[in-house]
């Protein structure tokens, strides 16, 4: 009997030999050695280590997952280079810009601007009613979102009325008066809290609430430092 073929020996790695094959193996050291090598090869294949994906693999995959709507962008998975893409931070930054713009706007606007577009209601009837005090708390996300929009609207109206009163009455003591601003912020905080009950993880709502709370703290701190007793 000639030597066993490599393919036959490969079979004998995991299967029993026939009597003829066993007889040959018993008498042929070359075939036994070849079989042993094949066993070592097979055993080594079973111990091959896992392989790490190439650099940038997650980033590419993340992009595909987002584009297919399988994950939400910016909810914590982004690496350091994408922190700015967080919706939470964008919302907070947006609100800060909004508050800054709303506060600075009346100061740099000309009086004629307000003459052309007077605010509704008679002078002096500025009344900001916190959402939670004047109406039942929102029970749905659209209602909560509407409450936030209403609070923003009230805030803008309050600033406009504030500017009109300053212009019409010329009372320097009103310049920098934080009362109406604080009332608007309070309204935003109340609306934000109500919205948060409906959507605890919503990044925009969280951003609005945190920014509003920070602004309220700032107003209170300034008032405390100046000894103002309006609060």
């Amino acid at each position, binding site marked *: 009997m000639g030597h066993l073929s490599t*393919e036959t020996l490969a079979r004998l790695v995991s299967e029993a030999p026939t009597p003829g094959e066993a007889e040959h193996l018993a008498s042929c050291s070359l075939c036994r050695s070849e079989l042993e090598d094949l066993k070592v090869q097979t055993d080594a294949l079973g111990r091959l280590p896992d392989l790490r*994906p190439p650099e940038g693999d*997650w980033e590419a995959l993340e992009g595909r*997952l987002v584009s297919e709507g399988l994950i939400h962008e910016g*909810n914590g998975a982004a690496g350091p280079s994408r922190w700015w893409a967080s919706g939470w931070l964008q919302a907070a930054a947006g609100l800060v810009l909004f508050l800054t713009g709303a506060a600075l706007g009346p100061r740099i606007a000309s009086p004629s601007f307000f003459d052309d577009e007077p605010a509704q209601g008679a002078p002096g009837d500025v009344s900001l009613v916190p959402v939670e005090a004047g109406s039942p708390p929102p029970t749905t996300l659209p209602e909560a979102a509407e409450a936030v929009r209403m609070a923003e609207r009230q805030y803008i109206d309050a600033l406009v009325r504030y500017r009109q009163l300053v212009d019409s009455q010329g009372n320097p003591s009103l310049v920098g008066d934080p009362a109406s601003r604080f009332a608007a912020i309070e309204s935003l905080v109340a609306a934000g809290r109500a919205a948060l009950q409906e959507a605890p993880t919503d990044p925009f709502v969280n951003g609005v609430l945190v920014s509003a709370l920070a602004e309220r703290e700032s107003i209170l701190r300034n008032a405390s430092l100046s000894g103002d007793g309006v609060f």
Partner: protein
Amino acid sequence: MTESQLIRQACQGNASAVRALYERYSPRVFAVVRRIAGDDDTAQDYAQEAWIRAIRALPTFRGDARFSTWLHRIAVNSALQALRKAETRTKRQAPMPAAIPVSPPQGDRDTLLGNLLERAMDQLPEGMRQVLVLHDVEGYTHEEIGGILGVTSGTSKSQLFKARAKMRDLLRPTLAGETENEEGVEAWGT
């Protein structure tokens, strides 16, 4: 956070949870896909496709099997299906090289042997490589392989024995050279 919690959050589109699962299992997924694909260029695409499929199918994961087993099966099926879709695989039809190039040992003997085996597997014809990877590397039975590849278990066995023999033929000259250099005998374990 437990794996079941990660899976639940990943189902809801939580990117952090998906990334945690990726970090945990991507080496396993990439390894099997890389060995089935046979080259680095396509392996990354196939692995990503496997992850897309897995995350998409995550709501159907009921926990009957281990998550790693479930994910592994998706990776295998995804890679095999992608290979079938590939129009031509001219690389696989190239003449087999006389020997695997030998590079100087850079690590321990397992690393050297592992590198030789990986490169030899890349040279196998596609069908042989798939069966060899699934059986000898991943531990699937011939019945399971038959079900995955749509062949009989007898065909799976036949392909496996051919693949082992081809691997041995590919590696023999290299290992003989190593023997002459008084390094390969110990490394190969003969």
